[in-house]
């Protein structure tokens, strides 16, 4: 008997509290798989943000902490310096990371902290009920942008990977999508790469995952994925924005 696929050891047995079809669950699973495959569940500390994934401390099988909104990269900085042999990751939404947590994200990246940030971009504040996020698309509606996001007044969707990639120090930055099985397999590779780099103490890794929020988008799971493919991917193109390992190899 061979197990072809099974809930990974990186996750606990707890039922996820996300809405049906919400891709937070997929992101969790691939992180859980990567931890299992790299055999680092026992040496990893995960950081849950404030956002729908606030309860992530119940879902990942590694040591976990829940921290103030937006401050996960600072907490991770403290942790990785206190436990340099651990792998430390944060799991953050777009509000958490790209709004209130902007400074912490930018500076953790700039210090090349040996941490992984898994950044779930669903273009909305899920937890609090559908307010505008920094990544909300132009003209997209949100409860705090009831007439659609007016770019002239509220700004253009922030592209975090592109911005951070201008910094000199971060080690690895990639944007992936969770919108198809193929994309998910690629996303998994990126997640695993990030954690592997951390295990090897290479430095700062960030994997942004283009995701969905069926509930606050007011779409059923399938429709939300189609919508995201059509509308999110053009604004948030997938790709590797920085990979020092590759660069170093190339320059050899």
């Amino acid at each position, binding site marked *: *008997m*061979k*197990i*072809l*696929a*099974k*809930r*990974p050891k990186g*996750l606990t047995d707890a*039922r*996820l509290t*996300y*809405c*049906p*079809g*919400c*891709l*937070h*669950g*997929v992101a*969790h*699973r691939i992180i*859980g798989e990567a931890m299992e495959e790299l055999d680092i569940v026992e040496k990893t500390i995960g950081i849950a943000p404030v956002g729908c994934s606030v309860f992530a401390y119940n879902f990942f099988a590694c040591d976990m902490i829940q921290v103030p909104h937006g401050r996960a990269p600072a907490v991770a900085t403290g942790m990785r310096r206190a436990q340099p042999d651990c792998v430390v990751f944060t799991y953050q939404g777009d509000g958490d990371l790209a709004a209130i947590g902007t400074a912490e994200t930018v500076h953790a990246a700039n210090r090349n902290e040996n941490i992984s940030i898994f950044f779930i971009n669903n273009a909305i504040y899920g937890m609090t009920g559908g307010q505008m996020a920094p990544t909300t698309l132009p003209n997209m509606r949100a409860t705090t942008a009831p007439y659609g996001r007016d770019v002239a007044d509220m700004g253009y969707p922030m592209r975090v990977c592109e911005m951070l990639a201008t910094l000199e120090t971060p080690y690895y930055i990639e944007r992936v999508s969770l919108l*198809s*099985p193929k994309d*998910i*397999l690629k996303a998994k590779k990126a997640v695993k790469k990030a954690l592997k780099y951390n295990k090897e103490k290479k430095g700062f890794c960030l994997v942004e995952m283009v995701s969905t929020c069926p509930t606050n988008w007011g779409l*059923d*799971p*399938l429709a939300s*994925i189609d919508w995201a493919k059509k509308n999110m991917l053009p604004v948030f193109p997938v790709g590797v924005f920085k990979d020092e390992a590759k660069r170093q190899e190339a320059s050899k």
Partner: protein
Amino acid sequence: MVTLTVDEHYCKGCGLCIVACPKEILQFARHLNEQGYHPVTCLDQEACTGCTLCYVTCPDGAITIVKDK
């Protein structure tokens, strides 16, 4: 032979696996699970190739696929 199990405890009936399956052998069950969702079941275990695409798309880690040698 490949055996696919959907753990009803986890399944939220989102239907993503149904669409992902190239063999079109997954379907909602009639009954509701304790969460109030129609869980997914496999209509035709024999047709399952074990491609794991359903597992890959499932956000709730509800699917296990085992191959008997």
